[in-house]
């Protein structure tokens, strides 16, 4: 069940990606529509994080390509924003909440420039949207998990992008923060932005996303949520790894085989 989107913003073509020398995504072909809240669902190790990292060009691909807004990645970087997993940084860094959110403006500011009043306005506005204004001068090591997540979210919002990639934004977050975040994402979707979220919880997926991608190393489904979150397709996704495919992944890794050809 792989449906193509009208009005595509993301076009993934025959993408194969390896992680630690082992192919974790095989020949992924999909398109994503504008103005959608997209959920990427699959079991652990399915390649979900790798997929969005490949979509943003921060991991090398073995073969295939990704086009955003019909162009190559490097041309449209200004329009893409990334919210990584909280564990991807060491939070024991001498900076305040405000400093980190201001980093979202660095792309627009360019090298050598200092932040201007306009940038400060955007930062304060984003802090307001995620409810962190009271904590803006707090050292980031003193934040709770939910607050850290909101800092990353505000940083991405500060980029004023059109396409957002988020890696497990609801992991380990309290229910109040989760509700606040999903409300914010819905507003963004209603404003015409596209938000792509790697999500870990099946139950809330049906409620949150209007387009869903089911993935387990290979693409199982991609389309409007009601048509994708069916029992049959979910069984295919969560019913364990394909045995032969698993063996192939292991052999490719041990034999250091190159499956790339771009």
């Amino acid at each position, binding site marked *: 069940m792989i449906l193509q989107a009208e009005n595509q913003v993301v076009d993934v073509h025959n993408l194969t990606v390896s992680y630690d020398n082992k192919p974790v995504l095989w020949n992924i072909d999909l398109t994503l529509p504008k103005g959608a809240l997209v959920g990427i669902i699959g079991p652990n190790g399915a390649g979900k994080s790798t997929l969005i990292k490949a979509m*943003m*060009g*921060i991991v090398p691909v073995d073969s295939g390509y990704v086009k955003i807004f019909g162009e190559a990645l*490097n041309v449209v*970087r*200004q329009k*893409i*924003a*990334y919210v*990584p997993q909280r564990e*991807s*940084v*060491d939070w024991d*860094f*001498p*900076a*305040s909440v405000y*400093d*980190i959110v201001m*980093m979202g403006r*660095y*792309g627009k*500011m360019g*090298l*050598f420039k*200092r932040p201007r009043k306009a940038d400060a306005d955007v930062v304060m506005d984003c802090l307001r949207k995620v409810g962190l204004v009271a904590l803006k001068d707090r*050292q980031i*090591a003193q934040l709770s998990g939910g607050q850290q997540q909101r800092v990353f979210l505000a*940083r991405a919002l500060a*980029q004023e992008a059109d396409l957002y990639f988020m890696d497990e934004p609801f992991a380990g977050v309290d229910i109040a923060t989760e509700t606040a975040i999903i409300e914010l994402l819905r507003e963004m979707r209603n404003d015409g932005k596209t938000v792509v979220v790697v999500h870990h919880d099946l139950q809330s997926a049906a409620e949150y996303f209007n387009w869903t991608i089911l993935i387990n190393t290979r693409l199982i489904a991609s389309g409007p949520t009601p048509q994708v979150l069916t029992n049959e397709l979910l069984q295919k996704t969560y019913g364990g790894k394909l045995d032969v495919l698993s063996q192939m992944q292991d052999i490719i890794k041990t034999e250091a085989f190159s499956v790339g050809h771009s």
Partner: protein
Amino acid sequence: MNDLLQFLTLQDANVRYVVLGVMLLSATSSVVGCFALLRKRSLVGDAVAHAVLPGICLSFIIADSKEPWVLLIGAFITGWLSIYLIDFISSKSKLKPDTAVAIVLSVFFGAGVMLLSHIQHQGSASQSGLDKFLFGKAASLVSTDLITFASVAVFLLIVVALFYKEFKLISFDIKYAKTIGYPVKFIELLLSSLTVLAVIIGIQAVGVVLMAAILITPAAAARTWTDKLGMMILVSCIIAALSSLLGTYVSFVAPAMPTGPWIVLIMSLLAFISFLIAPKKGILSKYIKQVKNRNKIKEENVLKMLFHLGERENDFFKPRTISEMMTMNDVPENLSKVLGGLKRHGYIEKQGDTYTLTVEGKTKGQRMVRIHRLWEAYLSEHLQIPADHVHFNAEAVEHVITHEIEADLVKSLTNPNLDPHESEIPK
């Protein structure tokens, strides 16, 4: 005293060059060191410092000259090569980064020492003094050196100022920097070059072996004093400059003492003191906080106990004796000391051998008992913990419950007036 004054007023021209030169180069090294520390690349700085030795020796052998700029070109090349090799080994082989650093450091340094011995055995008069690069010879700094250092220092500081936000970003979140299209490779290259440059000027004063200390120690010390990057850089410069001043003073008063090692010793002493006494992060401050917490717990427990006594007899303001109090549960061993503390805070009054709650004391004791019972009720209702197990948990936790949490507790309970032991929860 006369010595100190003469030193501090920098009357002696030689002293002037040495002091200013050393202060300048250790301050600039510490700036670069701050970023190395935050990027968790402190050991790479050490490897670079050791790796410049073969470069210096090779320059001397090839060019047959001891001109500073000749030697430093060789130093720059091998310094850079070592960084490249560390990255290459970490990324292409199965070896982890710390192994790569250890290997590169040892190989380059071994090669350097070998070349140094070879040069010394050649016996030509012009080579004497090359071994000063091992431990530095701050005392031999002259005015031309000062000018070189000053220019390199200014260049370094300008680059750091220009690229401040770029360095900050890649130190914190390099993957994010890639997604916003930052030229990450170029910025890393720049930072590495600055490190090599800082090492090259630093080894004049402290030598190859101790260079890592100049890079990292002031930054590590500064980190304990502040949570702002800008302030951290400033504090590390101050610590570096101060240590340099004092170290130079030591060798000024006792000429047999080597300047470089003394600077490093003083820097390390300042770092250890920082680790101990820095507010919030210092070991001493954490210990003091623990003691304060323990006292708070004991005092609040005694107030609770006095409230219980009052509850029992329905008279909160009756004077109590110590023997009366000892009949209650959970009485601390140093009861009279705790009572002394409570009197100082204004929660109880002492008359002879008896102690009476003040109005404030009763209020506080009441609140403690209220929180204790609210928390027990919460554990019982929401975590389904049996009534005979909730007491100890509440004893431990009640002292940190704030007014906001108290309000939330009340909201979450179906009956906020009765605890699991059927006692009434006071207002």
